[in-house]
């Protein structure tokens, strides 16, 4: 079992593995490559699922599968690498205290270990149809840190007992707000996934679904949705109802001790 942890609390070795993973897959041009997976959500493949109504939302299952596929790609290069979650309220509090941007330093610092920080942004691939206005790289334009969600905002959403209600509120009240807050590429559905902070943002969204599942003893999507294929990801809703079969859990921190066997 692997543990996804807060981007604000990564140990140096965990952060190093994350940066190495992103750097490595950014260099790939095959199905393990960063561009390949970014293109599944945004341009040119436009595969992502967001809510159209209260009854047919695949927003949470689709993005859980999507994170899983990128994490597997990262682990083909750096096996100990896991996606961290962006703890919006903690980042908000730290930023207000230190006059920082609100984006976790792991993703905000432009340089790391004397190199370009691969989590600070990304180049974009040229598109086959060469559309006008297609940018060469991601950009950010974060709003004031005080506009990020606070714990009470999250609590209100987690308390919703009905899954469809919870999913819609999580998407619109928190997920959409933070996309807009980061600004730049992140506020555009077709560009957002090319920014590495997208992955920490959505890992937080996935974590909240996981917390909701425990809180309400309910996996969420209606059984009639379970056989639905998640486009572009080779998985169904049923495949992603639990995180444990996908090999990960969420943890605030972890500590391990090796034991000698006789």
């Amino acid at each position, binding site marked *: 079992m692997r543990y996804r942890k807060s981007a604000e609390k990564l140990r140096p070795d965990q952060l190093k593995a994350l940066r190495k993973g992103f750097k490595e897959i950014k260099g790939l041009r095959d199905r393990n490559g960063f561009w390949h997976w970014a293109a599944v959500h945004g341009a040119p493949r*436009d595969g992502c699922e967001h809510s159209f109504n209260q009854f047919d939302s695949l927003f949470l299952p689709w993005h859980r599968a999507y994170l899983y596929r990128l994490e597997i790609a990262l682990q083909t290069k750096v096996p100990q690498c896991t996606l961290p979650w962006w703890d919006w309220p903690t980042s908000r509090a730290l930023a207000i205290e230190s006059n920082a941007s609100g984006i976790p330093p792991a993703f905000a610092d432009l340089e790391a270990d004397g190199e370009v920080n691969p989590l600070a942004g990304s180049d974009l691939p040229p598109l086959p*149809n060469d*559309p006008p206005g297609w940018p060469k790289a991601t950009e950010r334009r974060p709003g004031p840190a005080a506009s990020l969600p606070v714990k009470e905002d999250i609590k209100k959403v987690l308390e919703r007992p009905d899954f469809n209600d919870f999913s819609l509120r999580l998407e619109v009240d928190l997920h*959409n*707000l933070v996309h807009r807050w980061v600004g730049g590429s992140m506020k*555009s*559905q077709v560009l957002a996934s090319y920014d590495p902070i997208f992955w920490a943002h959505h890992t937080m969204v996935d974590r909240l679904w996981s917390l909701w599942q425990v809180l309400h003893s309910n996996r969420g999507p209606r059984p009639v949705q379970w056989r639905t294929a998640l486009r572009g990801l080779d998985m169904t809703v049923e495949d992603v109802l639990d995180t444990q079969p996908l090999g990960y859990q969420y943890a605030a921190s972890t500590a391990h001790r090796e034991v000698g066997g006789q």
Partner: protein
Amino acid sequence: MSAYSAQAPYRTEEPFPVPLWEGQPCFYRADLHFDGVDHSGDSYEGRVFLDNPEADPTTPRELESGYAGSINVFGHGPCFGDEGHCEVPTGPIHPFDYRRPHPLNRQLMVVTITDGLLHRIDAGAEAIDVTVVPTNDYDEDLGEILAFERLSLVTYD
């Protein structure tokens, strides 16, 4: 279907009657349902104000100003596809078309306005006007970004 689409704030033409029973609120939760929200453009926030038709992006987000909540729209952004890429089909092209809905199908958005509505009732309101102010954090020209098909007040008791 007709739809509201404009850069300026949306204002209800007719107020919503407030659900009262013997002069008291008869609900524990009140939602505004925005049906058919267009999200094909830029991302924005739509701030909902009750009984404050003069609200604008500078109006404080406080109960006293009538602020009741927001919709946060995650916009698709510019179209980088070929011709017709962002045209939403009206449905499957034939009975064997099993594709998921087009990504630009319009969305439902819900704002829970319970506290805001109760505040207005405490002030004696028996009907409420709704104003929706589109804004982002950058004071940019948003264009005709606020677009939806229907607004409903839904209460639960």
